[in-house]
């Protein structure tokens, strides 16, 4: 378990002290794939470096399995760092060493016997799928392959924790997917605790089970990924999610005034969210069946998976006699889903679609 308590980090800069982290507390359980998301400059890279003490917090404690790293001397820190692998955005491989030598590097540092090194490196290269590249230099590899070498190197000393500092930010989407798959596989096979720093909500959604949103040096929000996605509490979280989950109204309704009270010839717009089992329920069909007086139009729909849990979102418009519309809206709110009233909106007359 990684426990960060009241971490503060202040940098002395020529223009005065800069507070990168302001009282950050986080608990990361064993086996978690814990995402920390924030904009650049939010303090996330500083935060992840506090976990292995590449950055010493100005105050606060960093506990790993009950040991406080902030009280350790350099020798003790070097020992514990062997238990914390780290991968980087820029891979940080030795350009003068081959793939094999790069992966063997941490073992060489700890004076491991060459025979054992060879066995370990071979199995690691197999794990990351780079056996044929053992004799090549990093400059001969693609970005994804370089990150695989980085992962193999980070795993060489059998760490219990893997820190990923924007590990996929320099990669294209397909390569990002394959690296994330690899990280998940490692998490499952080797029971590794993974901490992922990113600015991309997609990464969080694809692989993390828990997330912390960091903003201007403070944790804005934490929780399970599904909960943060479905019930974001903070504006910054909604902003991150909106990149992935666009729920713009169709152009016929866009830029129209939204009224909380019924308006003539207006549609009552509702945002429906289905999570888990109820994503399969035929709610819309029952809505139409049980409320024969109304017209239902589906204005937006999207079905996705977060953490293997189906997650559907829909915006519908209901039109008809006011009593029937109100009844339908009430009915929806009683169903096993999240129904949120957006308001009454009129359709554009000059709508193109």
């Amino acid at each position, binding site marked *: 378990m990684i426990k960060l308590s009241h971490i503060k980090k202040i940098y002395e800069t020529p223009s005065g002290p800069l507070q990168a982290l302001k009282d950050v507390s986080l608990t990361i359980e064993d086996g978690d794939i814990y995402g920390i998301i924030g904009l650049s400059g939010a303090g996330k890279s500083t935060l992840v470096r506090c976990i*292995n003490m*590449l950055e010493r917090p100005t105050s606060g404690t960093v506990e790993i399995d009950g040991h406080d790293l902030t009280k350790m001397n350099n020798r003790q820190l*070097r*020992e514990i*760092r*062997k238990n*914390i*692998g*780290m991968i*980087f955005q*820029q891979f*940080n*491989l*030795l*350009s*003068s*060493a081959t793939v094999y030598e790069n992966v063997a*590097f*941490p073992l*060489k*540092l*700890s004076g491991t016997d060459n025979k054992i090194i060879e066995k370990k490196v071979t199995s690691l290269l197999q794990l990351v799928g780079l056996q044929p590249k053992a004799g090549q*230099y*990093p*400059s001969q590899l693609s970005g994804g392959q370089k990150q695989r070498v980085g992962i193999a*190197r*980070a795993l060489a*000393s059998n760490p219990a924790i893997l*820190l990923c500092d924007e590990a996929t930010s320099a990669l294209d989407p397909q390569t990002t997917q394959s690296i994330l798959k690899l990280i998940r596989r490692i998490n499952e096979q080797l029971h590794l605790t993974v901490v992922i720093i990113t600015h991309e909500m997609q990464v969080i959604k694809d692989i993390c089970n828990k997330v912390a949103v960091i903003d201007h040096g403070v944790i804005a929000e934490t929780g399970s990924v599904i909960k943060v996605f479905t019930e974001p509490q903070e504006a910054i979280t909604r902003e991150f999610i909106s990149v992935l989950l666009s729920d713009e109204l169709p152009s016929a309704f866009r830029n129209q005034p939204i009224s909380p009270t019924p308006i003539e010839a207006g549609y009552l717009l509702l945002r429906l969210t289905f999570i888990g089992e109820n994503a399969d329920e035929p709610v819309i069909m029952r809505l139409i069946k049980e409320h024969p007086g109304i017209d239902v139009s589906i204005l937006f729909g999207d079905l996705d998976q977060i953490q293997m849990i189906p997650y559907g979102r829909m915006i519908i418009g209901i039109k008809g006699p006011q009593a029937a519309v109100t009844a339908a809206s009430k009915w929806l709110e009683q169903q096993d889903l999240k129904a949120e009233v957006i308001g009454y909106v009129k359709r554009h007359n000059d709508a193109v679609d």
Partner: protein
Amino acid sequence: MSSDIMMLLIKSLGQTLYMVIISMLIASALGIPLGILLVTTAKEQILQCTTFNRILAGIINAVRSIPFIILMVAIIPFTRLVVGTSIGTTAAMVPLTIAAIPFIARQVENSIKEVPYGLIEAALSLGATPAQIIRHVLLPEALSSIISQLTTVIIGLIGASAMAGTIGGGGIGDLAIRYGYQRFRPDIMLITVIILIILVQLVQFIGNYIAFRLNKK
């Protein structure tokens, strides 16, 4: 050309090579570690010690600011202390070495500074000691660049060795002055210049080749 002159040329070339090679070896043995210290003791580096860093940088700048011909004469007592004499080829090696040390230190500093800090960070995250980082990260990563820089230093030393004649050091440059200039022998002047050009070209070529072979970037 008479065989006497031929012998003189070979002897002078030998003196030049002797001075340059020996002083280069000794200066490298001292200058490379100083160059490493210049980088690693700076602020926010693995052996941070800013006071030491400032003093070291100050001494290096001071030595580098003395013109070689003055340095040679100024340190005569020191030279006598070290090699027992203040004249001759061996005596000339002392100021050559002293002049080369800070030069090498600065050049090595520049090479090592080019190693991205991310690599040091990666090594730290793997539990490397500062000594291991120097040995396994900084030196191998900067080696190609260090070789290029040392090539420049060698060529500088060949140039400076021409002044060794002032204290009876001999060498090709001295030959050019004494025969080519003072005895009005343009043929000897020409041949010494040609030898120097070939020597410098050769050093540069070998340096470039080694640096190229070592560069895996």
